[in-house]
């Protein structure tokens, strides 16, 4: 077993345009998947985390139950199967119908997949918010939707931010599965480079290091945001005391 580090370095430099192309797509997939997955998760999580309101009409009660069953099925399927299989299945299933390209398909699939994880994160976040918060909002006359948007979501998101942010890191790595539908993301590009040079170890070492840089940068960024979110409070308190 030998690794030619010099060769790895040279390849990184020489094939940088190809790597860079893949990096851009990988980052795009991670960001799009996380943002849209978050939005999907917020809606699904709200449906699943919504407490039963004694004032609900029988129709609303039924719809809530139905919504929970349906979203439960979605979460079960998308968390219980590999994203690579989801990508292949959905891409080829819908290609004759909507004639989409792999990149579009990939964006949609990674969002739906992330949404399933986000939904569970946000559901637990919503359920961890003190029921007194909802009661106070209701006692002012706020509607269920207003209560969710202005009182519950902000607290649920803040409480679960580390888990939400972690999905970005997961997506940076898991977007490599999109190579199965020929999305030219970082792993796909690396395989092309490795295949054309017939040097696998060195090229994949480069790839691993690039992934590590990406995930480290993302983690750092998330930490900064999280610290900002908690620091706001102390600042407000300082202003007040003087």
């Amino acid at each position: 077993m030998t690794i030619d580090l010099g060769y790895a370095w040279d390849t990184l430099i020489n094939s940088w345009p190809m790597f860079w192309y893949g990096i851009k797509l990988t980052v795009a997939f991670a960001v799009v998947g996380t943002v849209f997955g978050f939005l999907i998760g917020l809606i699904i999580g709200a449906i699943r985390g919504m407490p039963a309101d004694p004032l609900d009409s029988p129709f609303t009660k039924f719809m809530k139950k139905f919504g929970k069953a349906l979203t439960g099925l979605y979460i079960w399927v998308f968390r219980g199967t590999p994203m690579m299989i989801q990508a292949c299945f959905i891409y080829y299933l819908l290609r004759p119908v909507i004639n989409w390209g792999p990149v579009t398909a990939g964006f949609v699939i990674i969002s739906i997949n992330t949404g399933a994880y986000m939904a569970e994160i946000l559901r637990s976040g919503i359920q961890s918010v003190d029921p007194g918060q909802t009661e106070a909002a209701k006692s002012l006359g706020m509607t269920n939707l207003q209560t969710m948007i202005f009182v519950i979501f902000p607290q649920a998101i803040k409480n679960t931010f580390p888990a939400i942010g972690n999905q970005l890191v997961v997506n940076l790595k898991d977007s490599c599965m999109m190579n199965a539908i020929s999305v030219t993301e970082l792993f796909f590009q690396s395989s092309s480079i490795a295949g054309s040079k017939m040097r696998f170890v060195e090229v994949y070492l480069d790839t691993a290091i690039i992934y590590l840089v990406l995930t480290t940068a993302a983690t750092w960024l998330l930490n900064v945001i999280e610290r900002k979110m908690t620091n706001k409070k102390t600042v407000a308190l300082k202003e007040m005391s003087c």
Partner: protein
Amino acid sequence: MENPIIKVDHLQKHFGDLKVLNDIDFSVNKGEVISIIGSSGSGKSTLLRCINLLEIPDGGSISFHGKDIMDRSQSLTDYRSKVGMVFQSFNLFNNKNVLDNCIIGQRKVLKRNKDEAKAIAQENLKKVGMSAFEHADSTKLSGGQKQRVAIARALSMNPEVLLFDEPTSALDPEMVGEVLEVMKDLAAQGLTMVVVTHEMQFAKDVSDRVIFMDKGVIAEEGTPEEIFENPKNPRTQQFLSRYSAR
């Protein structure tokens, strides 16, 4: 006599097999301060929560200015905005600062504009002595401060009636006074209030009427003098003796 603001008629409420409220009758008139006393578990909170429709009564009726509040042709949010609630555990919105706690309901429910809502919030914060804390994080306040903000939040909706569910029970003893002071001021200003409390001195001094609840029924009702000086029901006597013994 003037029509009552709230009229509770033969109200019943069960939790499963447990009958928590049984045939409750009483009304709240404009400008009145009513104290509800009684031992823990007697159904006081449930009664207030039924009035605010946080619990749904399963018998009898509650009317607001003569209209059944369960009648869904009336707007629930409109009704709730007119009947405020102050909770034992404050329930300030943790994601909002003091001022925004008092603004959000006005903006979203009453659709007041920003400046008007802010002015009203500031006015009410002043009333409860919390002006200096406008921009403070609501989670960083002391219990007494939180409860005063919660009162300002409720007042900012200009409710016709304010319901208090043991507003001082979760407070450290040294903070009870500041909250009771605020409530006394409100009573003196003519606010209609229904107060569930264990502060017998407050009930005695401030209320127009005292209701003693026992095991889900109103066991006795009367003026503070009638209830505190001359209780007729042996259960009222027994309950009150526990307080005077201290």
